[in-house]
């Protein structure tokens, strides 16, 4: 008798995604789905999709989900969790969403020690709108709005939101992981699981996992090169590891 040892998580729908080849969202979705399954919280989880490439996350993740205004997920999540303390509430936000337009919302959700789990996808670019500069864009990186490459003079430096959040007492767990090799991906899953576990265990504060995620399309790289770019270049600016908790 053959035994099935590897299968699609129940929380991940059986359908093709709209993501580009080599995109990290597919990996991140799967990790979130696996963690939800393994923790047995499928029936009491509410997810928040961002504005950005992952706006249709509810087409792939089979839990109750809402799609909200750009950057406002932590405020929406606050409204949900405060009125439903027995539910597990997570937001899934990109760097345009969380690190640009939604900076106030994430800082203050952490500041209030909201009991939320935040999945923060950092691919250093606005993907959905055509590859414009994000706050997390690397110096020298060419984007649709930095055709000469991002210059610190006038366009500022890459913004390390996780480091900013880690100093707040209300952020009880902050870890940055990379979706850039099988080993890294396993670490990312462990981090996500821990972040969800904190909420399940009623830990008093916000948990955030930043995932450095490849965007081969707008990095103008092959998928393998994008993985290597994370390992060799991006981790210099966005060091991997636990920042808090």
């Amino acid at each position, binding site marked *: 008798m053959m035994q099935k040892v590897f299968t699609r998580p129940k929380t991940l729908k059986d359908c093709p995604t709209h993501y580009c080849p080599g995109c990290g969202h597919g990996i991140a979705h799967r990790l979130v789905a696996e963690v939800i399954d393994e923790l047995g919280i*499928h*029936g*009491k*989880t*509410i997810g928040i999709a961002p504005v950005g490439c992952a*706006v*249709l996350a*509810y087409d792939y993740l*089979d*839990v*109750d*989900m*809402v*799609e*909200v*205004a750009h950057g*406002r997920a932590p*405020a*929406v*999540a*606050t*409204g*949900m*969790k*405060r*009125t*439903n303390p027995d*539910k597990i509430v997570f937001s899934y936000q990109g760097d345009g969403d969380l690190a640009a337009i939604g900076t*106030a*919302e994430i*800082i*203050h959700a952490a*500041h*209030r020690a909201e009991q939320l789990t935040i999945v923060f996808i950092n691919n250093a670019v606005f993907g959905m709108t055509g590859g414009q500069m994000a706050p997390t864009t690397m110096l020298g990186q060419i984007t649709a709005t930095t055709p000469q490459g991002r210059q610190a003079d006038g366009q500022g430096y890459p913004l390390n939101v996780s480091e900013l959040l880690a100093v707040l007492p209300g952020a009880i767990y902050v870890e940055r992981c990379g979706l850039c090799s099988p080993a890294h991906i396993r670490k990312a899953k462990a981090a996500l699981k821990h972040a969800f576990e904190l909420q399940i265990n009623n830990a008093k504060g916000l948990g955030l996992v930043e995932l450095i995620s490849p965007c081969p399309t707008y990095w103008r790289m092959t998928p393998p090169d994008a993985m290597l770019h994370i390992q060799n270049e991006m981790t210099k600016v966005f060091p991997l590891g636990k920042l808090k908790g």
Partner: protein
Amino acid sequence: MCGNEAMAEAAIQAGLDAYFGYPITPQNEVTAYMSQRMAEEKRVFVQSESELAAINMVFGAAATGKRAMTSSSSPGISLMQEGISYLAGAELPCVIVNVMRGGPGLGNIAPSQGDYFQSVKGGGHGDYHCIVFGPSSVQEFADIMPLAFDLADKYRIPAIILADGILGQMMEPVVIPTNSKLNTQKLKLPKKDWALTGAEGRKQNIVRSLWLADGAVEQHNYDLQAKYRQIEKNETRCEQTDVDDADIIIVAYGICARIAKHAVQQAREQGIKVGCIRPITLWPFPIEAISKAADKSPIFLVVEMSCGQMLEDVRLAVAGKTPVVFWGRPGGGIVTVEKILEKIQGLVTNPKKK
């Protein structure tokens, strides 16, 4: 009790689960009252970091099927417009209180009715409406609050209570309705089976306003419009005073209606036949009542604490059948009985003068 506190207590009695707000004058009494009472009731109170956050917290609570509200004043309500558009698009029920102050910009903190257009014509992006109430006394604040929650739930739509700084701050005796649960049963409100409560034992629920498929948003808009026509048909409310024999009909809402009714009384004592139509719902607007009254060819006098916003809706309702004139004051100027009477007397001596 002041109007702001009456609204707050009435909302609590109407089964409010969560209040989210940010300080701004002249509505701070609502937030302060809620911070105390919601804690006593073991319900949710959060002072948000901005009005943007407040309206999105409302969005979050409403998406899970809870009764949620926020309150603010004009500049804060402008900030909330993004969220209100999303609430309208996602068809989420909630109550939003706007205690209007002088604008544009930071304006001042004096009473105003300058946000009429913003409230009844949508306010944010897209083709949508909110149900908008314009109560004119502290008691009516309290009476309308449970209705606002019920209609919001019934039609899955944001409801706005459009107040002003006078009514918000004014103290009057008030009886807070506590039978709102009975009211809810009477209305037979639909079950919130769309709400996000965790997909235990059922299919996934999604609350969304994005529809990318070809023609899907067009259809979504037609569906919304069909709902709006139903609301127009069922929920239009106005109060008519001495309208039948009137040569002059004042149309005013909120505090202006309160003041105008004194002018009506004094004009009648002088033998001038004046009546008053007071829209209680500003959207849906009482088009039919005004149109019907216009058939008898009175002169309409619109009185507002603005440069003439509801005036446009009155003109549309009158549809050229009879003259419509306007008197009002913007930017925190308060209308008075004397000035309205003066205007009425002017119309009697020179009825064609606009």
